[in-house]
């Protein structure tokens, strides 16, 4: 009896060192401009060539501007890094979706939408949110640059096998409660470090009823509880999503693949090192108030009172809410917000934009809000244009920018100024994540849209009622 994770892991082990890691075979390797240049330099210095250039795919995302992508990047260092990616890919025969390519985008949005991401695969990328791809029933996790070099050189990495955790959420999410709220709720319960050492399987009807995009949002944030990754057993929803995607098997090959993929589930009676069970009915729209993604509460809740915090954590809790300019016991509803960011590999997909558009249709952006709405990829951008989302947004006072990671990590110009508050659909609220001194509150695209309209923290269900 095996878990889904065991089945995929065990079938990818090339060899195992006694009391050490295994050489794990990697089916699909994604790279971007920031964590790959030193890896290419490394293999070149060793005189080793790329072992399987057809298993690596590249796109620049972290560093790219989100306006005027048709002209050369102004920031010299960013330009150098993006050019270096193109050059390295050309030199080593790797497919690269560069700026202005119709497939360019955030690497974790690009992989699934091209059909590169498939059930049963091992997928790595020099980026911690590689866990996103676990939504398809794949083992997908982030790696460091030395490991990127390993994959380029040998199509393998050295990895100790993680422990296994299953998180089951039964029941259905209520109206106005989204996949983002579900994962923020889980992280608030498990804490930012509670998943360390584990690979998570998400099970139960709350996940089964999600679309693929919702499942990606969930798996994306597995790393925010410290887990290496998270995965969900593939089902009809998964297969329907993959069908006809460019890099997926086609025709009879697809049917054959589905037959194989259908076996990818945890056997009844297989055991996990840890099991957690939650009830979907307990989940409401969530928001974070601190400087790690575990510091979250339902949007109508309050910041915990200092005296209720475990003594060993008091100091860091205090440091965190001081940074945010909050006090313990504060109510979050009604607090003024300056920036709204909708985008990132967590919530920069077409369904997210649809949700925002649907909400803001017929409403207006609050004057006090600066909003950045950034599609996750060129394909998402195109779809948003075709579906009329761009116009709806414009009528409501928003503008769709061009694809990239943008304010998720603020490596480009999209930086939230010091001391300003941002509601962000991304995945990290660390100090300075969205620009030095910026203050980030994580929430769903729906909550972000409601805040963009009202200028204040608000329960999206309240606005919808108006």
């Amino acid at each position: 009896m095996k878990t889904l994770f065991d089945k995929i892991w065990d079938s990818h082990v090339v060899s195992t060192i006694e009391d050490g890691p295994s050489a794990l075979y990697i089916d699909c390797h994604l790279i971007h401009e920031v964590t790959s240049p030193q890896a290419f330099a490394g293999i070149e210095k060793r005189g080793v060539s790329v072992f399987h250039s057809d298993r690596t795919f590249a796109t620049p995302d972290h560093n790219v501007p989100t306006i005027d992508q048709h002209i050369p990047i102004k920031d010299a260092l960013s330009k150098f890094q993006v050019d270096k990616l193109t050059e390295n890919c050309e030199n080593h025969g790797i497919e690269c979706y560069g700026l202005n390519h119709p497939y360019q985008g955030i690497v974790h949005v690009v992989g699934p939408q091209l059909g590169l991401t498939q059930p049963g695969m091992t997928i790595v990328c020099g980026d911690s949110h590689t866990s996103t791809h676990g939504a398809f029933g794949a083992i997908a996790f982030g790696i460091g640059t030395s490991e990127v070099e390993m994959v380029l050189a040998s199509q393998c990495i050295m990895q100790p096998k993680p422990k296994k955790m299953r998180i089951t959420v039964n029941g259905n999410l209520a109206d106005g409660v989204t996949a983002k709220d579900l994962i923020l709720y889980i992280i608030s319960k498990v804490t930012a470090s509670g998943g360390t050492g584990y690979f998570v399987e998400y099970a139960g009807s709350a996940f089964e009823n999600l679309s693929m995009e919702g499942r990606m949002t969930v798996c994306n944030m597995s790393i925010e509880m410290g887990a290496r990754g998270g995965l969900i057993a593939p089902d009809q929803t998964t297969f329907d999503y993959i069908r006809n995607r460019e890099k997926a098997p086609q025709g009879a090959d697809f049917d054959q693949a589905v037959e194989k993929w259908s076996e990818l589930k945890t056997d009844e009676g297989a055991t996990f090192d840890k099991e957690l069970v939650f009830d979907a009915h307990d989940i409401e729209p969530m928001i974070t108030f601190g400087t790690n993604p575990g510091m979250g509460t339902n949007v109508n809740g309050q910041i915990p009172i200092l005296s209720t915090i475990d003594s060993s954590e008091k100091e860091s809790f205090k440091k965190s809410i001081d940074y945010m300019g909050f006090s313990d016991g504060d109510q979050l509803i009604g607090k003024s917000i300056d920036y709204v960011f909708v985008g990132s590999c967590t919530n920069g997909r077409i369904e997210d934009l649809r949700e925002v558009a649907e909400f803001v249709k017929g409403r207006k952006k609050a004057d006090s809000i600066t909003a950045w709405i950034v599609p996750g990829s060129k394909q998402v951008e195109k779809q948003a244009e075709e579906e009329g989302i761009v116009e709806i947004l414009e009528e409501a006072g928003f503008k769709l920018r061009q694809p990239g990671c943008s304010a998720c990590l603020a490596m480009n110009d999209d930086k939230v100024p010091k001391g300003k508050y941002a509601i962000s659909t991304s995945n990290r609220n660390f100090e300075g994540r969205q620009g030095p001194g910026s203050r980030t509150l994580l929430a769903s695209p729906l909550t972000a849209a409601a805040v963009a309209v009202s200028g204040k923290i608000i329960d999206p269900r309240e606005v919808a009622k108006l």
Partner: protein
Amino acid sequence: MALEKFTTITSTAVPVPIENVDTDQIIPARFLKATTRDGFGENLFRDWRYDESGREVSNFPLNDPRYSGQILIGGKNFGCGSSREHAAWAVHDYGFKVVVSSFFADIFRNNCLNNSVLPIQVSKEFADKIFASIAVDSNAIFSANLSDQTFTIEGTNESTKFDISSYKKECLQNGYDDIDYLVSIKDKVEAFESTRA
């Protein structure tokens, strides 16, 4: 490519007793635009070390003249967040050879091991003892002995064992790296591939 060989490190230590230190704090994203591995030490803990006008924040431990050494003592859940190896490069480039914490994030721990920095996980109680001994004497000496897998507060009886896989230990001691190993088993990888086609 041979890495630096790790030997016993005996040194004073720099305490950063903050929990959940994420790699965005260790090296903020805006400094990730370099295409080499060098020079990141300058921006280690940049936004805690310097204010916005570039002046040193005097009470941050790295700026405190009382603290120095090759050992960094961090709070619980050290190195969480982004997988950027630049964080390990920054720690190494600044001059640290050992990082001690009561709890490490997985990817950061791996990244350290791949860059000749030894991550030592100790119990919460032992971490408290380390912080306490630095509070009493900022020149307190510690020693990280890889072959015995012990971390010792010198001049006291306080010593603790730490875990490391024997493979990684050997790699560190001999300066081997995983890439050499993986390239050397290429025939095994090819044999593996032929079984799945």
